[in-house]
């Protein structure tokens, strides 16, 4: 899905509808221009149990704007030709259930979506939606976490499509200053077990962390920080943060 060509990837996350639906296209095009390898589009949900305060608040703002999954898919479909990088939906399961599984997969595919991350859909339950995603050529991006035992990482890796989302903390989303010492081992371990790219996410918020973490995996996903910077109107800062991946890749070449 993500064509790395030996490069490391920066994947930003944004909350659809935060700041109004009319800002979605603008944000997607901007992130593409900044050098994002793919973009994760969050769908707001009333009860986001895997998310910390920043994304919770962004979700509440988006819901106040009346954002729905249907609106987001309709919006993106209208300008999908202008976006050349993969778009990935990050949504809790219930908005998909309410939409209708088959209809959702068809509409998402038609809107040019490449894959889905569903944080409350573990391996044990994925058969619930997998056939519909497969039929519509949508990847299901699976998560592994620092609490996932090795045997289970192997099982998840054996089914992986697109990339593996390696959750860097035992916890919820949100910027952090420090990561545990186990993180390096964890990422190297996941990397050794996976045949698809491994992207690290949760808690990553600075260019320094991007550089450090990219040593052990294929790229990073940055959510809360990007959401916060868009909310504050700090677009230059976003360019700098996303651009930090260019430095990483130049060093690889050098």
């Amino acid at each position, binding site marked *: 899905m993500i064509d790395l060509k030996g490069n490391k990837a920066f994947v930003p996350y944004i909350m659809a509808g935060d700041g109004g639906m009319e800002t979605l296209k603008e944000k997607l095009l901007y992130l593409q221009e900044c050098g994002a390898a793919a973009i994760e589009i969050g769908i707001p949900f009333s009860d986001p149990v895997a998310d910390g305060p920043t994304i919770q608040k962004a979700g509440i703002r988006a819901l106040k704007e009346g954002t729905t*999954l249907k609106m987001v898919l309709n919006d993106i479909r209208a300008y999908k030709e202008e976006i050349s990088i993969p778009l990935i939906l990050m949504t809790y399961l*219930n908005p998909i259930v309410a939409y209708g599984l088959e209809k959702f997969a068809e509409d998402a595919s038609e809107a040019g979506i490449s894959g889905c991350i569903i944080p409350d859909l573990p391996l044990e339950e994925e058969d619930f939606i997998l056939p519909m995603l497969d039929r519509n050529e949508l990847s299901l991006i699976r998560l592994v976490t620092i*609490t996932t035992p090795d045997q289970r990482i192997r099982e998840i890796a054996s089914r992986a499509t697109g990339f593996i989302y390696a959750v860097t903390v*035992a*916890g919820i989303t949100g910027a952090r200053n420090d990561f545990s010492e186990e993180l390096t081992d964890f990422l190297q371990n996941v990397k050794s077990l996976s045949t698809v790219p491994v992207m690290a996410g949760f808690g990553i918020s600075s260019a320094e962390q991007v550089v450090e973490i990219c040593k052990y995996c294929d790229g990073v996903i940055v959510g809360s920080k990007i959401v916060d910077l868009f909310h504050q109107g700090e677009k230059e800062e976003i360019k700098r943060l996303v651009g930090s991946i260019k430095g990483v890749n130049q060093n690889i070449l050098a």
Partner: protein
Amino acid sequence: MNQTYRLPDEKGHFGAYGGRFVPETLMKAVLELEQEYNRALADQEFQAELEKLMKDYVGRETPLYLAENLTEHAGGAKIYLKREDLNHTGAHKINNTVGQALLAARMGKRKVVAETGAGQHGVATATVCALLNLECVIFMGKEDIRRQQLNVFRMKLLGAEVISVDAGSGTLKDAVNEALRYWVTNVRDTHYILGSVMGPHPFPKIVRDFQSVIGKETKRQFFDKEGKLPDALVACIGGGSNSIGLFHPFIEDTSVEIYGVEAAGLGLETEKNAASLAKGKPGVLHGAMMYLLQDEAGQIQEAHSISAGLDYPGIGPEHSYLHDIQRVNYKAVTDDEALEAFQLLSKLEGIIPALESAHAIAYAVKLAAGMGRDKNIVVCLSGRGDKDVQTIMDRTGGLG
């Protein structure tokens, strides 16, 4: 339904409901809990310790009491009350917390997190944590903290840390969200004592099994008194733990009519209710597929009930299933009807029921009135009402 009832299946499904819809970070803990629970079931020492605590600490068995004055008032079937209000801490909640705290200790987890609505589950959790020397953190909605001050103080007295949740409507759903986030972050040394028959497998099964003591005792006690099975069972439902506890041992006894009572709040015709079956549709929340109050886009709605313990926009997966197969009849009772029943039981029987249980009383009186005097109803009186006295005073301006 003549076939034997053996649910959930090994993946935690009750038909289309239940399952384990949780973040990957929690899967290890959820799978471990299932293993440990299965071991505990087969461990005679564990069972003996549980039984001892249930008897000597909780005060079981609880009486099955024939409410003659209430029966007379209703003018039909005899009404028996299963007195879960007489348990230590004043509600059925402790049946589950004793069992789960023993499981936590078995797993070497010395920290416990729990959510609470009315505060009864929080108090029951804080109580067993004090007993077994476990650290205890309780999440409680801001609105619930306001209306259940007495229970907040009790939890603190028992050594628990009570954390106020401001998000959403500041009620039970929001407290569960926050407790889940806390568990995700502290899962390595913390056990989550879920208080109702909801959440990811194996919680709906574990909580049901521990609460089934209610129905097992009822069956035996009723047989001793009347020499047969009761004709009907009635219990209130928020997430559904006291009700499933009473109902489960009777599921295969098809002669027994079973009634679950949801909170209709200001009325089913309004938006202000907590009747997930009457007004909701299936979806996924807090780890399970179940009936949920939600809008067209799948956003969960805020529930409303005068009773903090029923103020939840979902109903456990097993109830969702029992509704679909029509083994249990689900009804709804409004705030006003519950208030009336609260005062009625207090005056007629000298028993002040929890507002939650008052919903069951209200429906039972209606049901009894339409049944012959040779029929019998058992109502689960799930908790006592001391905690609700302030709410009633505010609402009625005293009794005059």
